[in-house]
């Protein structure tokens, strides 16, 4: 049976509640400023003793008009904004956005760019999962696991800084390529290899040792916040939330993109090989374990790619009038200079075809998509986000009802709510 939540006004939380003995119910405001909400979000809980009778999430405390900005910034500039949506790992927001922009303009990336983007995307997935796994411990009082998780995240920041120039909000992708090629491929390969072969496995092992079979952690997470397979599909959950409930869906397999598709380099290379972990219990513990396994699969994917990064250009050819020509041409030739001006000037810029396009990728939290409506101008007419966290978060009231107040943080952590993406 589908679950419906009647939209309630705040006044409804006054004394005349519909739930039985209303005299004994009381209301608790959880957030907007609470360390366990991770970000700025408010949840109004109606409690019977310590048990939650009703939960009403309020969103909008971090609303910053990102989607509207997308209508005012051009296809390259908007990447700085999408970075700030799901900031647990900014890179895959960029991959999704520029994936959509390139689909609209019909640009086929170079093999080198595809490989680099895939590696970065998987690093992003590890980055986000480390946050979620580590914070799962933190929310339940196990601070140490959190520190180990962040130790490893720090290395990802270093790698990302090396390839993009900034530690966090990378603004790394551009239409048809990247903002720069690797400064030195050998150094990059060494950094990534050191990370995935030595540092990360040890960090993961430490977290596992602390949490996986720790009775306190297991008791706090097992059987909490269960969502069944049918409900997960009905609520269109995606990512680890869905897979922990037994829904075998992963965009990387179902609608492959970048190096997840066969023949990605036009020379018959097979798609990268990995497995999609699923569980059937659908509780907080299952989501934790699925995420942990996905980190391992990501390591496996990076291992296959890191040794054979194809050579060649990282940007598509400037002939297509979508990427800036190389600086040597701009400084040295009049054609290069003209083309450079053409792309940047506001009355010229990109010339995408009119039309609509939707492109989605599998991020650490699920299906993140962008729906672009183009009127042929330099900026999108509409740049709609299909936000995975927002859609996963809808099911939150259903998950917490009937549980204790202290379980709210455990469930919230397992949904991995990032309010900036929630509100956009």
């Amino acid at each position, binding site marked *: 049976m589908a679950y419906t939540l009647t939209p309630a006004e705040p006044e409804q939380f006054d004394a005349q509640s519909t739930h039985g003995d209303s005299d004994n119910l009381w209301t608790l405001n959880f957030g907007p400023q609470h360390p366990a909400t991770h970000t700025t979000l408010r949840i109004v809980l109606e409690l019977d003793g310590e048990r939650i009778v009703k939960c009403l999430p309020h969103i909008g405390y971090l609303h910053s008009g990102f989607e509207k900005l997308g209508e005012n*910034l051009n296809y*390259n*500039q*908007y990447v*700085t*904004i999408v970075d700030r949506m799901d900031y647990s790992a900014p890179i895959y927001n960029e991959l999704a956005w520029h994936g959509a922009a390139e689909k609209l303009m019909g640009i086929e990336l170079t093999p080198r760019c595809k490989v680099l983007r895939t590696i970065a995307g998987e690093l992003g997935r590890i980055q986000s999962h480390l946050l979620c796994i580590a914070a799962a411990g933190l929310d339940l009082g196990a601070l*140490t696991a959190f520190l*180990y998780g962040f130790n490893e995240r*720090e*290395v990802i920041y*270093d790698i990302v*800084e*090396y*390839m*993009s*120039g*900034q530690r966090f*909000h990378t*603004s790394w992708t551009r239409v048809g390529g990247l*903002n*720069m090629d690797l*400064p030195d491929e050998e*150094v990059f390969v*060494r*950094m990534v290899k*050191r990370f995935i072969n030595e540092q990360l496995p040890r960090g993961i092992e*430490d977290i596992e*040792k*602390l949490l996986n*079979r*720790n*009775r*306190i952690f*297991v008791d706090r997470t*097992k059987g909490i916040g269960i969502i069944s397979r049918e409900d997960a599909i009905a609520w269109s959950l995606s990512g680890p939330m869905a897979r922990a409930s037994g829904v*075998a*869906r*992963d965009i990387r*397999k179902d609608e492959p993109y970048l190096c997840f598709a066969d023949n990605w380099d036009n020379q018959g290379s097979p798609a990268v090989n990995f*497995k*999609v*972990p*699923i*569980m059937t*219990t659908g509780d907080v*513990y*299952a989501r934790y*374990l*699925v995420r942990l*396994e996905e980190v391992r699969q990501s390591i496996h994917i990076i291992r296959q790619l890191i040794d054979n990064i194809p050579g060649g250009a990282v940007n598509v050819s400037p002939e297509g009038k979508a990427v*800036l020509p190389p*600086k040597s041409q*701009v*400084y040295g030739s009049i054609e290069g*200079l003209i083309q*450079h*001006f053409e792309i*940047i*000037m*506001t009355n010229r810029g990109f010339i995408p075809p009119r039309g609509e396009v939707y492109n989605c990728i599998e991020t650490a939290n699920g299906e993140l998509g962008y729906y672009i409506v183009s009127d042929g101008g330099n900026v999108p007419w509409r740049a709609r986000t299909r936000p995975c966290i927002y859609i996963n978060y809808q099911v939150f009231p259903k998950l917490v009802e009937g549980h204790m107040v202290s379980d709210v943080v455990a469930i919230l952590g397992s949904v991995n709510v990032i309010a900036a993406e929630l509100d956009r």
Partner: protein
Amino acid sequence: MKSTDVIEIAEPRMTLGDQFFLPQVLVGLGTTMKHMLRVWTGTDRVIQYPEERREDIPVVEGGMHRRSYRGVHRLNRDEEGRVKCVACFMCATACPAHCIHIEADESPWEDREKYPAKFDIDELRCIYCGMCEEACPVDAIELTSLYDIVGLTRQEMVFDKSKLLRVYDETQEVEPI
């Protein structure tokens, strides 16, 4: 998706020892102790900022790569020490944060027509995306590896032309154009 692409993970089996709290607590304690030892043996990853800085550490050990890092801007000078910028407004156009303000004027020099009489970058508004550097057709604006800048007022953080040229003078040795 093919069924061979899916692996179903089983919950870890709790042994009898795990059913009691103590053994797992000890395992956890062992893990944390191991990390504590690393501090004494110097194999931890702590950097004693500001005595140690990431600029001085090799990149593979987690150091900073000066060339690619995107920090505070600078305005480059040409061989004669004049500002290189030709006030073409490309950087201001490309900037997604609208934080570059230029006032162009007729240049006092023979070899070009325009130069920036005023050139202000609001470093508080800037998001350090590097699009201005990409947009510049004459290599006049660049992002340096400086990141620890402070100011007591907001006005101080609006870098004007002389300040941006000073950043160039200070950083040109470690980061040539």
